[in-house]
Structures are given as structure tokens and as C-alpha cells.
């Protein structure tokens, strides 16, 4: 049964150095507040998993939290590059970053396998691409009925998955709607989970794209209004596109990034 806790308590309890951590949310409902709390707590050597790293992972990578990134598209949507990600990959700053990259279809299916208690998933993908050469977690598989050759990818089972949802009820059931990406699968694939929510309500209304996850399948719920800013929370607030644009300048330069780190309360030397 999900327990309601404060965000800092949840992160302290769930996220440990060396863990594999997934923060999901496809453009929408990205758990920024949780990401910033991981930075403030100074976690290290994380394997960060996420289809679209977005600027939240740029921040975690720049802060030196990550040893490895498992992903499928690492850009600043609508703006350009993730400069801290590029600096880590191109220049090993603030530390080397191992990468394991897939396509969106592959990542989505890896979460599906994880949520399903299966060791792998099958898809039509990757054939002819150089991803097959550089990513070890892609293999061929033969259909036992037709003999057709397909592609297999291994399950993702993060130690912790974190998502942001619009609402929880008092039983700890959580409710998200709109674009819901791979959040359900990311939560169900993980050993432990945290859902940050905009608010707690008595009952859930219905909306297009509803996803309701029962509280008994979750570890923690933390009430964090605005916890997805500068991404958006459908029905609560819009995407802060100017913040995404501003991140380009903030992140382009190491020193302006370190100023940002200090502003969010990261300890001295967070990035080194």
C-alpha cells in the first residue's frame, strides 16, 4: 500500500548511490522536483533510465549523479541540444558517462517486458541500423512458428521508478491523464516506486487518456504541487517553454550551470 511521505524522505529512502533509476514522463508530467531532490541529496553513480532524457537528466548528468544513461532520444525538445549530456559524452565532464542507447520502440518494449515479469520483449526494430553494433542489449530472435527473424530487447527493471501524476486519492491510488507515455510500465517494472502528485482529491473524475494505478502497487506518494515544472501537467499548468529555451544558455556554459546548481540548493562540489 502506497505511503504518503514528503519528497525528501521518499528520495532518501528509495534512491541510493549506484541504483538504477527511471524518471519517466513523455514531454508531459516530467518529475522535475524529484530529480532536483536527487541532485540535492548528492546521489552518485546512478544508472539513469529514460526514453527522452529532457533537461531533467541534463541537470542530473551535469550535477555528476550519473555513471550511465539508458535512453532513446536526448535533446531539449523544441530547442536543441542537451549541453550537459553532450559535455559528459564528448568531454567526460564532470565525469565519464556510459551510454546504452535504443530507439523509442525498443525502450518502450523494454519497460513492457519489465512490467510483465518477462526477461525480454520482441519487436520489429533496429535491423540495418548501427545501433545493433553499438548497443549490447539488442539481439536477434527467431519465431518458433514461422522461422521469421525478429529483434529482442531485455527487460528494464529499475530499482526505483519515479513519475509525476495529476492526482492521488486518499487511498494512494494515483491518476494521470493526457499524454501518459510509458509511465504505467515504468512504475510496474520497478522494484520500488514514487509518484509525486499535484494534489490529493476525494474521488477521481474521468478525462481522455486516463491511467489509474492502484495504491497497493506503489511504494510512496508525495504531494508536490508544480512538481513537473517546467514541463506541464495537463489540467494544472502549461509547459514553460521559455524555461526550456533559457536552459539552452544556462546549460551551455559550465559555470552558469554551476550557478544554477547552487540556486536549487545543491551542495558545494555537486558537479565535481
Amino acid at each position, binding site marked *: 500500500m502506497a505511503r504518503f511521505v514528503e519528497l525528501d524522505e521518499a528520495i532518501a529512502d528509495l534512491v541510493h548511490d549506484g541504483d538504477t533509476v527511471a524518471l519517466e514522463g513523455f514531454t*508531459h508530467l516530467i518529475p522535475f522536483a524529484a530529480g532536483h531532490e536527487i541532485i540535492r541529496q548528492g546521489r552518485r553513480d546512478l544508472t539513469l533510465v529514460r526514453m527522452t532524457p529532457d533537461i531533467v537528466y541534463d541537470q542530473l548528468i551535469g550535477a555528476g549523479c550519473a555513471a550511465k544513461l539508458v535512453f532513446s532520444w536526448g535533446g531539449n525538445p523544441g530547442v536543441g541540444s542537451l549541453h550537459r549530456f553532450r559535455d559528459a559524452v564528448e568531454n567526460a565532464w564532470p565525469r565519464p558517462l556510459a551510454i546504452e542507447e535504443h530507439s523509442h520502440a525498443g525502450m518502450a*518494449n523494454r519497460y513492457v517486458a519489465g512490467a510483465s515479469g518477462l526477461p525480454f520483449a520482441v519487436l*520489429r526494430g533496429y535491423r*540495418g541500423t*548501427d545501433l545493433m553494433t553499438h548497443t549490447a542489449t539488442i539481439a536477434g530472435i527467431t519465431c518458433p512458428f514461422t522461422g521469421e527473424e525478429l529483434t529482442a530487447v531485455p527487460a528494464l527493471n529499475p530499482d526505483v521508478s519515479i513519475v509525476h501524476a495529476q492526482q492521488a486519492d486518499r487511498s494512494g491510488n494515483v491518476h494521470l491523464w493526457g499524454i501518459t*507515455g510509458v509511465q504505467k510500465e515504468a512504475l510496474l517494472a520497478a522494484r520500488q516506486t514514487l509518484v509525486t502528485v499535484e494534489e490529493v482529491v476525494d474521488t477521481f473524475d474521468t478525462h481522455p*487518456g486516463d491511467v489509474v494505478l492502484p495504491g497497493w502497487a506503489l511504494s510512496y506518494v508525495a504531494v508536490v504541487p508544480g512538481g513537473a515544472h517546467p514541463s506541464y501537467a495537463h489540467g494544472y499548468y502549461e509547459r514553460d517553454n521559455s524555461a526550456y529555451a533559457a536552459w539552452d544558455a544556462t546549460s551551455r556554459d559550465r559555470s552558469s550551470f554551476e550557478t544554477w546548481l547552487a540556486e536549487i540548493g545543491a551542495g558545494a562540489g555537486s558537479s565535481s
Partner: protein
Amino acid sequence: MTTPSATGGGDPAGGDPADGYTTDEMMTVAAARGLSSATTCFVGIGLPSTAANLARRLHNPDLVLIYESGTLGAKPARLPYSIGDGVLAESADALCSSPEVFNYWLQPGRIQVGFLGAAQIDRFANINTTVIGDYDNPKVRLPGAGGAPEIATSCHEVVVVVRQSHRTFVDAVGFVTSVGFGRGAGHREALGLPGRGPQAVITDLGVLRPDPTTCELTLTAIHPGVQVAAVRAATGWDLTVSADLISTDPPTADELSTLRRLEATKTGVGR
């Protein structure tokens, strides 16, 4: 070929040519014209999204737009700022999860046209959006694959919209993120890829299409005021020019004003 091609039509613009337009506007209008008879389109963000939304406004209001955020049949009232923009969700016929959009909608070949951008594209229309330089020690780390590899293989056909330059149009990409025709004729079939692959690459200079025999991209249309020599200079291989090279009709006043009204929707705050 007997199946209707989404990009096959010259589709005469049929209006008065507009005065004063940019090469980007010509590119976007040409890309939108290429969707005039399409039924369903899997839309990448950026230039492809602008062109696909322009096509819906100009001449194909029933065109079904699918974005990889799981928004099926999106009809955004303004240009989406990102691929997971809330206006896509609000206007969609149906919403689905990421696994579902790739597994149930893209993978089975339900989508006719895949509309992609590119950081680099080569002679055989293979696309690189991963890395420039050595993979393990890159000169430029690009965003990566996203949904493109499976869009490039599962859609019935692919259209690429990309500005043309010597740096972008290379002889052979250093990293194949999304397969065009691989190493040439027959390679898609050997890989067992279901779709027909890229049928048009629409740039700010003209339109390149695969040679029916060799699958090499050749220049088949040139935009008004562009010289063939300039296109060749902006291409990193010895570009073949089609014997039937045509000149693109310039944007009509209606195309241009519709495009500009569409672009203007993006400048607001929005999300």
C-alpha cells in the same frame, strides 16, 4: 507502382505565385504538397510537423496525424511546440501509451507516410541522428534515434524534410540511425524491412527521389531561382540530376499566407 503514392503528385498549386518567400517556406510548402493525397502520417517534430499541419489546412483536411507521444488523429489548433504538446492530446481522436503507439499503430504498418527530419542523410537516404565522429569518442553527440528507426521501416513510405548543405548531405553517414536504402538496391528487402523506404527528400533547394534502379537519391525537382550547380555544391556526393528535372511551382499566395498564419500560432506562450 499501382498503390497511390502520397508523394507522387506534382499537385499543381493552382494559385497565383506569391512574391517574396524564404527558402524554408518553399521547402515547407513543397513538403505539404507532397501530403496532398496521403491518408495517415506519422509526424516527426520540427519541419515535418509544420508541413503536415500545413497540408491539413491547405488541401488535405482529413489527413490523420499520428505523433509518437501516442496522440492519434491530432488536429492541433496551433503548431505544437514539442512532440508531446498538450494541444496534440486535446485535439486527438484517441490517446494511447508509448508502447501502444509503437506496437499497435506503427509496427503493423498501419501508417502510410513517415515524415522525418535528419541531422545527416546520405546517398542512399540513410539517416544519422546519433553521432558525428567516433561513437565512443564523438565529435558531436546528437540526440539519438527516438522513434525514427521504426518509422523508417514500418511506414509504407518515408518523406524526409531537411535543409540541404554539404555537411548534411554526405556520401555515407558515419552512423546509420534510420535505414533508407542501406547499401543500395535490394538491401531493404534483404533486411526484411516492410515499407518502401524514403520516396522523397524535400529540401530548401529542391526535391530528391531514389533512382528506381539504384535507389540513389537524385535531383528530380528544383525550387524556383535555385541553380543545379548550387544543389550539387550542397551535396556530398556526385549528385545525379534527373533527365526529367522539373521546377517546383513557387508558393501561391494562399499557401504562403496559410503557412505564415500557422507559424504565427507558435510564437505565443503556449506550451
